[in-house]
């Protein structure tokens, strides 16, 4: 719908960008261009390694697995170690298979804002969906096309209760890292090596 009306979309996006970060609006590598580049990606998947530093634990937790995205709204994270787990987001429904008995949990993003805000931020970035991103987060883009960093800071008090910030690092339309810090100080650093990239 949005793509079928590119003019309207561009205008809306432009306004959003002007409002969000007027200082950067004039520089050549803009959030708008980044989003356009990311929106080109139809599907992508890669291996990840996640390193979590949690306040309850005195040692970091490291997990590995694969991450994949398919436009417009499918996100899948499969963890191999240390415990097998599967996380699938489709539309606004999350299906998780986890735990020792591989129990299935199903819920919508709106039901669990603890997860919802975070997941929505990452997915909107992958989708190049500036409107959604702008609704939830204040955006700050640094670096250039070859090596950029997009910082997301939640706008609403509700989201601030759970997420302090999300930082996405990449080059052109490829993403190489997603780091997050939650409000209680817990941090996660995830590095991604893409192996299938379809920007058709």
């Amino acid at each position, binding site marked *: 719908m949005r793509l079928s009306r590119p003019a309207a979309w561009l205008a809306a996006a432009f306004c959003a960008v002007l409002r969000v970060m007027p200082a950067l609006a004039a520089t050549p590598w803009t959030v708008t261009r980044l989003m356009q580049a990311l929106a080109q990606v139809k599907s992508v998947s890669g291996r990840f390694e996640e390193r*979590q530093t*949690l*306040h*309850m*634990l*005195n*040692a970091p*937790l490291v*997990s590995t697995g694969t991450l994949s995205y398919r436009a417009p709204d499918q996100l899948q*994270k499969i*963890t191999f170690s*240390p*415990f097998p*787990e599967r*996380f699938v987001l489709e539309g*606004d*429904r999350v299906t*998780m298979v*986890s*735990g*020792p008995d591989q*129990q299935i*949990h199903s*819920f*919508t993003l*709106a*039901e*669990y804002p*603890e*997860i919802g805000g*975070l997941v929505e931020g990452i997915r909107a970035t992958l989708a190049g969906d500036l409107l959604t991103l702008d609704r939830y987060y204040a955006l700050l883009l640094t670096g250039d096309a070859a090596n950029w960093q997009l910082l997301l800071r939640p706008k609403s008090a509700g989201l601030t209760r*759970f997420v302090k910030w999300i930082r996405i690092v990449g080059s052109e339309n490829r993403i190489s890292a997603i780091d997050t810090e*939650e409000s*209680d100080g*817990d941090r996660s650093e995830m590095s991604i090596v893409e192996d299938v990239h379809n920007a058709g």
Partner: protein
Amino acid sequence: MFTMQARRVALGVWLLAVIVCIVIIARTRLETDMTAFLPRSASLAEQVLTEQVTRGVAARLILLGIEGAPPATLAALSKSLAARLRRQIAFAYVANGDDASLTGTRDYFWRNRYLLSPGVVADRFTIPGLHAALQEDLGLLGSDLGALIKGSLPNDPTGEMLSLSQRLARSPRPRSQDGVWFSAGGRRALLLVYTRAAGFDIDAQQAALAQIHAAFQDSRRTVSGAAAVRLVESGPAVFAVQTRATMKRDATRFSLLATAVVTALLVYAYRSARVLVLSLLPVASGALAAVAAVSLGFGFVHGITLGFGVTLIGESVDYAIYLFTQTMHGDSAAATLARIWPTLRLGALTSIVGFSAMLFSDFVGFAQLGLFSITGLVAAAGVTRFVLPDLTPPDFFATGAGVLARPLLVVMSRRQWLRPAVALLVLAASVVLLAHRGGFWDEDLTKMSPIPAAEQRLDQALRHEAGVPDLRYFVVFRRSGEQVALAESEAAAALLERLVATHTLGGFDVPSEILPSDRTQRKRRATLPDAGELRARFALALAGLPFRPGIFAPFFRDTAATKRARLLTRADLPAPLRLQFDSMLFERDDGWNVVAPLTDVADPKRIVASLAASGQQGLTFVDIHQESDRLLHTYQREATLLASIGSLAIVILLFIGLRAPARVAFVVAPLAASVIVTAALLTLNGGRLSIFMVVGFLLIVAVGSNYCLFFERLYHTPESQRRSVASIVLANLCTVSAYGLMSLSGIPVLHDIGVTVAAGTFLSLIFAAIVSVRVPLERLVGGEAPHSLAGPP
């Protein structure tokens, strides 16, 4: 024929009786509880059906949908409406998916998790058990669920809340958007409202709906951009209120119309206002006496008895018609009465005998109808006999009645030729009935339901969107005490859990999940180690795991609090859980019934087999659809049986009253013929008979027997016979127009009875005129041409 004194006594007795009846009626309790129309010897399964229909939580549910605006506007309206409704005493629980609708339940389970969770077993609190739990926690913490459990982990390292909420989440929930429940696509915001009043209390339900409408209007005014928003509603209460309103509207409309038509007919026939009023005296007195008698006999009067009963004693309008119309010039009403009384008495008796079979019914409702009609007809006949003659103007003659009778007199004069035609018609009707395929009974319950198909579809849609399961299957049992019942519920839950594991069913609810038995609660409380012991074990269980020391202090605090806490009782339940609990466990007749709803049942037979094999006593599997079908069959059987016994009793009475088999045959033949032909007409083109039509058949016999008796008797003069025919025609015109108008109603009960009685009594009139008359034609016609028969001599 009476002395002046005797007349005064009769009038005085009547007035006194009317006053007594009014006093009794003023103190009468009117009930609309459907249980009166359930068998007195109800099985547990039938009780479950009634409980669900009347008192259960499902019957208190009103489903609301708000639509016609963007989701944000609908969400704001939903929150505003819910807030308003929660302030009102009429609603036990209002859920729209916001925090307020969920926190009560969540808090209850969270605070009492160590008494409620089946995970609280001794093994779990040993050093290896705690170590395993902590290892699971570590896995979860690193997973994507980590953010969810992080907050509760310091309080709940053994994951009791997680296992409780997994059980709770088994029932489907609507999706949330902007903090409230929505249908897919965000088209409709959804609310579930539970009334405090029971489902059968239609007055209270109507008031609750009015409160909802008012609150919605207020909310719409306060939320901007909501002017075009609509409220849609469904649920048993909505249906009950709508049905009653439609019934009331139709009944009022058609009885007003019928009154107008009957009044016009009587005005034309009598041309006297006083006699017009007098003609209502028997039926009105009969109704008063009937209500009073039922009130005395049963302690209450059912709404259905009242509505149906008046229909049953409607023939008493005819009594006055027979008296007034058969009074001849120069004749007094008293003399006329003396002449026709034997016939009138026998006619009234046949109806009384016909209806009396209902007295012995297993259904309180039918028994009430029996007493109602018997008392009503006795009183009406009594008033006709002892009160009416003295109130009738001395020179009264029903001037207009004669004209009405002319067409029938023509039929009667040709009756020798018409008799074979009747025989042929009955033969054809019999062929139609015999050739009828696929059963005579209408077994589709929805066709008996007065709820329009569009409303039923909306109900389905709202239920689906709101995730309200279709409660069809239940496991039920009965125990002597509350605690025994709860203990049995725990055993049943274990059994059902195994069936869920094998996908025989999707899920279930039992009362013990909300409130375990005291014994289980005590056991769980005792399972928790003392504070010192727990700390010691926990410290050892933490060995080798990366948890920071000291973060689990809330866990020791909460377990210690549970060790000190008293046991949970029903009073501790938050509103939504109490609602659910009370509909699953309730006391009836010195016993405690447990009703556990099952959802997504894949294989009913396997559940029955598993229950039987379990060795647990008295666990019954109930399929509500099957039960209601069976109940319908019971009704059909009961109605047919009562109608058959009633008809047989009438024949026996006729033998006693007429004393000659030939005469009985003249009376019974037209009645049988009209019932057969009416049944054939109703089932033509594959039509089916409803239970209401059977009631109609009994009415045909009750009303029609009067016609036959008046046709069959001998008259001293042709004129008295002509007056008799005129009275029958007038009576029949009133009956046919009243019931004919009723048949125009879209409500099945009104339509079915209306069409059956209108057609059947009209046929009775024609058939009786052709078959029952025994006197030779010459005597009847009296040498005059038929067209002048109706005039004065």
